[in-house]
């Protein structure tokens, strides 16, 4: 599965499939100076599940959006079932039967299912509706597609996988012939992912062509009929018959650099070269090809408890999330992984540790001292550090200079009227950024001038300092490319080696399994399971969705 250059007709494994459902020639997409997609030529056969995979920034989403008419390509043409698509015309694409299910859902949360179905269609404006009429109209459609949602239910009240099912049903309400799904599994538990795949297979069997963007190899191999790989905006391979693809060859195509042969890694491990072994295992885990357990180690001796939650409950937040009698201990020199479907108490957990929400019950201790009544500033003084969920709002002030973003933590340790020396603070920022290999122009530039990976490095540089005792990392690698992800993991391992305690909250089980010494599953704000390596994917998955194991 090596680069084969542009080809007019792909589909090695699609013989006899007839006219291509979707074909593009020389497709190029630019955003300003940045080329998101360069000269991609491929054709996808009808009635198949086509997976498109690649790293972040490989051009997958741009490709999907161009096919749906949401982006006008700079060059090249797209044809649906042989008919050319006018560039950037959503209505055209829809008329041709192309529907896109977005990465982040586009259904209005306050709508009922029936309303969302109705008003997702075009060309019906102006008529008068009754609630009952709407619900009756869509009940049958939903049932036919096996969507278990009442037409009268509000979107915001539905679990995330049902929302997605409704969104898919909405996309199929018209005469959709081609369904494009942009990373639909990112928000799903393993069980829900399997259910989605089953749904997609049924749709394929009824004649729908499916284009699905995935970034995990295991998922690609599980669902796809053909595989197409993009890398840096270029077509690397495909579409190839999924049967002829192995996880190893796919990983190689996605990353671009060959994975080190297993024999090499074994030799290194024997020689005690742990860090290099890490790197190769990281690479495999990054693309979901493997879930290595070798690196995870449980501290044998009982060490200092850097953080402890005892029976912590919080009141429901506006989004309904809460903690319910959560007991957790993090010891020095370990990484505690928090698994769970998003929205099951991860945010209240971080806020409770940070002291940003009042506790309804329970106690929080840092470094074996009770801090329940202390402010975040006081907790930070005791070594609490946080890499928050939202890098661009909670982690950084995008319009402020980089040095101010970096200096914020140390400045909060001083009195408000303490005199500062901006030149020295800028120097400190420059020194830290050099250590953390941040690529930036000037410390006077606003934080928004950095890419996601570099922005995260700025936060790491600020939060992982000499006085840190406990670091909470909330989705630290979300949206980062492979290189930056590996960097974050390395930083976590080094922090652990220095004896810090870490809490890693992630929706990526591969990441959690790779790096965590223990994994705790949160479900509905409760601890639904505690796991030690080697991790059992099925058991963790069951705990995440509330099943027993």
């Amino acid at each position, binding site marked *: 599965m090596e680069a084969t250059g542009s080809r007019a007709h792909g589909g090695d494994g699609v013989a006899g499939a007839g006219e291509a459902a979707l074909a593009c020639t020389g497709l190029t997409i630019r955003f300003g100076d940045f080329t998101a997609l360069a000269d991609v030529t491929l054709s996808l056969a009808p009635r198949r599940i086509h997976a498109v995979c690649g790293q972040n920034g490989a051009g997958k989403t741009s490709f999907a959006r161009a096919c749906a008419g949401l982006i006008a390509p700079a060059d090249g043409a797209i044809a649906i079932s042989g008919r050319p698509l006018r560039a950037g015309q959503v209505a055209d694409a829809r008329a041709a039967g192309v529907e896109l299910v977005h990465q982040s859902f586009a259904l209005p949360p306050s709508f009922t299912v029936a309303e969302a179905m109705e008003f997702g269609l075009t060309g019906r404006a102006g008529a008068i509706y009754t609630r009952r009429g709407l619900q009756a109209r869509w009940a049958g459609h939903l049932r036919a597609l096996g969507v278990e949602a009442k037409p009268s239910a509000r979107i915001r009240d539905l679990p995330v996988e049902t929302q997605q099912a409704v969104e898919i049903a909405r996309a199929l309400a018209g005469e959709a012939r081609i369904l494009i799904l942009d990373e639909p599994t990112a928000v799903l538990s393993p069980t829900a992912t399997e259910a989605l795949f089953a749904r997609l297979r049924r749709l394929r069997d009824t004649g729908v062509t499916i284009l699905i963007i995935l970034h995990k190899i295991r998922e690609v191999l599980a669902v796809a009929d053909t595989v197409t790989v993009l890398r840096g905006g270029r077509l690397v391979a495909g579409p190839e018959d999924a049967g002829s693809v192995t996880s190893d060859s796919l990983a190689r195509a996605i990353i671009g650099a060959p994975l080190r042969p297993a024999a090499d890694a074994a030799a290194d491990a024997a020689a005690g070269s742990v860090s290099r072994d890490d790197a190769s295992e990281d690479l495999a885990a990054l693309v979901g090809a493997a879930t290595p357990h070798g690196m995870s180690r449980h501290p044998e001796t009982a060490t200092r408890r850097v953080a402890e939650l005892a029976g912590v409950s919080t009141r429901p937040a506006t989004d309904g999330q809460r903690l319910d009698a959560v007991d957790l201990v993090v010891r020095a020199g370990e990484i505690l992984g928090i698994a769970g479907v998003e929205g099951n108490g991860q945010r209240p957990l971080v806020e409770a540790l940070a002291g940003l929400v009042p506790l309804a019950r329970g106690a929080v201790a840092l470094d074996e001292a009770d801090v329940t009544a202390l402010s*975040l500033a006081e*907790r930070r003084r005791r070594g609490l550090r946080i890499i928050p969920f939202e890098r661009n709002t909670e982690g950084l*002030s*995008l*319009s*402020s200079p980089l040095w*101010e973003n970096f200096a914020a933590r140390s*400045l909060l340790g001083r009195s*408000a009227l303490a005199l500062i020396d901006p030149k020295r603070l800028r120097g400190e920022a420059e020194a830290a950024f050099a250590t953390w290999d941040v690529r930036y122009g000037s410390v006077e530039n606003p934080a928004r001038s950095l890419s996601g990976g570099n922005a995260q490095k700025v936060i790491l540089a600020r939060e992982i300092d000499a006085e840190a005792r406990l670091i909470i990392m909330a989705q630290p690698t979300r949206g980062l490319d492979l290189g930056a992800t590996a960097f974050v993991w390395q930083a976590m391992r080094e922090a652990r080696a220095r004896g810090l305690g870490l809490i890693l909250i992630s929706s990526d089980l591969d990441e959690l399994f790779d790096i965590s010494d223990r994994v705790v599953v949160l479900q509905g704000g409760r601890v639904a399971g505690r796991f030690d390596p080697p991790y059992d994917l099925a058991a963790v998955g069951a705990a995440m969705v509330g099943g027993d194991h």
Partner: protein
Amino acid sequence: MRARLAAVGRAVAFVALALVLCGAIFEVAGFSAPDMFAAILDGAFLSDGALAHDLRWACPLFVSATGVVIAFRCGYFNVGTQGQFYLGGIGAAVAVAGLPGWPPLLVTVAALLLGTLFGALWAFWPGWLRIRSGTDEVITTLMGNFIAGLLLVWVTSGPLKDPSGSGQVTASRPVPLPIRISSDTGVSPAILGLTVAVGALVWVLVNRTAFGVLGGLAGRNPVMVTWQGARLSRLGLGAFLLSGATAGLAGAMEVLGPDGRLVSGFSPAEGFTAVLIALVANLSVTGSVIVALFFGGLASASLYLPVIAGLPSAAIDMVNAAIALFITSRAWPSRFRPARFRLRRASR
């Protein structure tokens, strides 16, 4: 550096644009635009003693504007400068009336301090409402201006009324000469010294203290500083109090200086112009020096307009308003609005 030059260039361009717009309007209305510009130029900058006249207006304007800079940088839109300025004037007059027979220097100092305190108090309640319950400070401070204006009417026609007054103007008794910090010209070492001192202090506060940097971060992204452990309530209340204090000091300076007594409805455009100065100066203290001189010049030129161009002196208000229009249309969406939206979420 390039970014700073660009900001200066933009500000100059907007002011020029506003002047051209006003010129065109007056030309259409039958007045002579060249005459108007000549009158402004002459009155503001070229005539004998123009600089002294400019400074008379520029000094209190600058002091008020520094308060606006402090609050706006922290993301709080205290537009109650006018009311805080009035309360400062009232405070000064109360001190003067309440301490008869004290040594003049002590009364002056007490009057300045009480004016500062009154101004801060008039910013305290909107700040407290904002921090406790998220009440929009734009509304409360703006309403506070009207209440303060009526308070001033009551004070000057009631408790502090000058019984010898003609009845045309309600005002307090004149401040005794030894207590005043300048003659009617409004320019004196005391006023200049105070202005420079306030400017220097605010510059240090904004650029050389933890409060300044953290306040700037909070103004642009309050959520981020919350996650760093900052208490927005303290930061915000501090910004409100300091902002009101400077406006109050400016009011006290006006009463003890050029006005020489507390007059109902004095300097009615003070607060509006101070906000304008801070915005044109892009919330920079050093920038505010130059911009305050410019607006001080406009204020003093307004006296020349009727004489030279046959225009009402209110024409200067039009110029001010046009500048405000251009400056806010640029500044509001890009810099301030996102912060305002996020503030609500941060302070829950």
